[in-house]
């Protein structure tokens, strides 16, 4: 195959625009084409604004982690976090300021976690972090450390003003059972994030254990008809 027949103009343009380093090998050699493909893969797995892993790539990392946990039995923590009242930043200071806030938060998160952890931007002002080999005790500490680090940020925006933001975090530990999915894991962490928001924001909520408790309301409903029957 002669690589010179490939239409690579758009690919090269994209890579140049993104500031990616082009391979040093002889142009159109097999090695060079491989380098271009690698650079494209790298580009398509990253978030353009923050340079963090993007949602697509994060979901792959999470699926790998579910698989690993199911086999090894090690613990892992998934954190979902969201910048509090982010809409207000955009509305009051403009979208450029909003982007700066997102970049600053992303950088802060990346500084707190270990190299083995994966920090991703999964939505507008939403981030997710998967922490392999992270047990219950360490999980709470690291979540709190992330929250504190963000709250200490003083972000200078273009208008010359300095902004401070907070984040809410929700987390769930990987299930140790064979039958689970990354989607389910994200939902569980999301529920905790929702709880953190509902409880007043700027806090962390972790799902600590299997929720097997049956509330009084559930019991009441469970026995409503059977009791009527026996009366």
């Amino acid at each position: 195959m002669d690589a010179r027949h490939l239409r690579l103009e758009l690919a090269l343009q994209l890579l140049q625009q993104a500031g990616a380093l082009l391979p040093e090998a002889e142009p159109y050699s097999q090695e060079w084409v491989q380098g271009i493909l690698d650079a494209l893969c790298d580009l398509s797995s990253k978030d353009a604004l923050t340079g963090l892993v993007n949602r697509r790539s994060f979901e792959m990392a999470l699926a790998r982690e579910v698989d690993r946990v199911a086999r090894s039995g090690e613990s892992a923590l998934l954190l979902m976090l969201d910048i509090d009242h982010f809409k207000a930043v955009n509305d009051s200071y403009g979208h450029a300021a909003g982007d700066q806030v997102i970049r600053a938060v992303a950088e802060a998160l990346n500084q707190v976690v270990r190299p083995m952890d994966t920090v991703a931007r999964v939505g507008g002002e939403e981030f997710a972090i998967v922490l392999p080999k992270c047990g219950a005790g360490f999980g709470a500490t690291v979540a709190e450390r992330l929250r504190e680090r963000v709250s200490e940020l003083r972000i200078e925006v273009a208008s010359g003003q300095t902004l401070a933001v907070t984040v809410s975090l929700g987390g769930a530990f990987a299930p140790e059972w064979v039958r689970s999915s990354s989607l389910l894991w994200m939902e569980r962490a999301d529920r905790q994030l929702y709880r953190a928001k509902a409880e007043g924001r700027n806090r962390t909520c972790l799902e600590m254990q299997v929720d097997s408790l049956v509330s009084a309301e559930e019991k009441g409903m469970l026995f409503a008809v059977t009791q009527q029957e026996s009366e």
Partner: protein
Amino acid sequence: MTTTSDPAASPTPAASGVPLAAARPTARPGARAGARNLAVTSGKGGVGKTFVTANLAAALAQRGQKVLVLDADLGLANLDVVLNLHPKLTLHDVFTEKATLEQAILPAPGGFSVLLAGSGMVEYSRLTPEVRDKLLHIVEMVRPRFDWILFDTGAGISDVVLFSISMASDVLVVATPEPTSLTDAYATIKVLATQQDRREVGLLVNQANRVGEGKLICGQLQQVLQRFVSAKPGHSFKLELLGEVKNDLSVRQAVLKRQLVMEHYPGSDAAQAIKALAHKLLG
């Protein structure tokens, strides 16, 4: 026995929302050609879980199926008691490499095979990576040789119980009309729906006092599940009533004599109910 290192034999997480009572190749963790596997669980102990498992195995065997009952109640196994077996070799011996799987799989009355936990298993009642690995390996090894694997799980919702259920593609929850049994069955189903992505679970109401009580209880559980579990969109959950076993004399006699109703009281209501359950599972 070595720990599993063959990637093809390792399970991959899978979630399926396929109907329970229909014969089909199932999508399940590590699915390959081989047995359908059903976990029988209950939440509360003493509701007849092992009784149902053993008689269901006999009913499936009568339908020409090759069935293995795996005593997954590692902490407090009593399948041997129900079947009046005095095993020399158990799962414990396989774990400790004192016996091969072939040696430990024993014929049981009723025409099925059993792999008993044995009393030495207490040390394995905690779910360590080693225990998980060994159990998974054993299940992978026996799967190609049977049509059905029934997991007789322990009582409660401990991690061992949840893990053994997670190895099965289908789940049958056994409950009695007693309030404590219903509450524990509900808690179990809720955990399975929210933590294991189960969309469908089968229910068998044991020790029913009258005809139709199973239907009533199933409807009641379904209603509460509807409200507290499937309230979120896309979270449909279905509890399917697969049987109702009335509390009749034959059951009490069979249990006391440590016999199977399927063998010794084949004409009893209980045997008919278990037969109907097997029929539903076979589709």
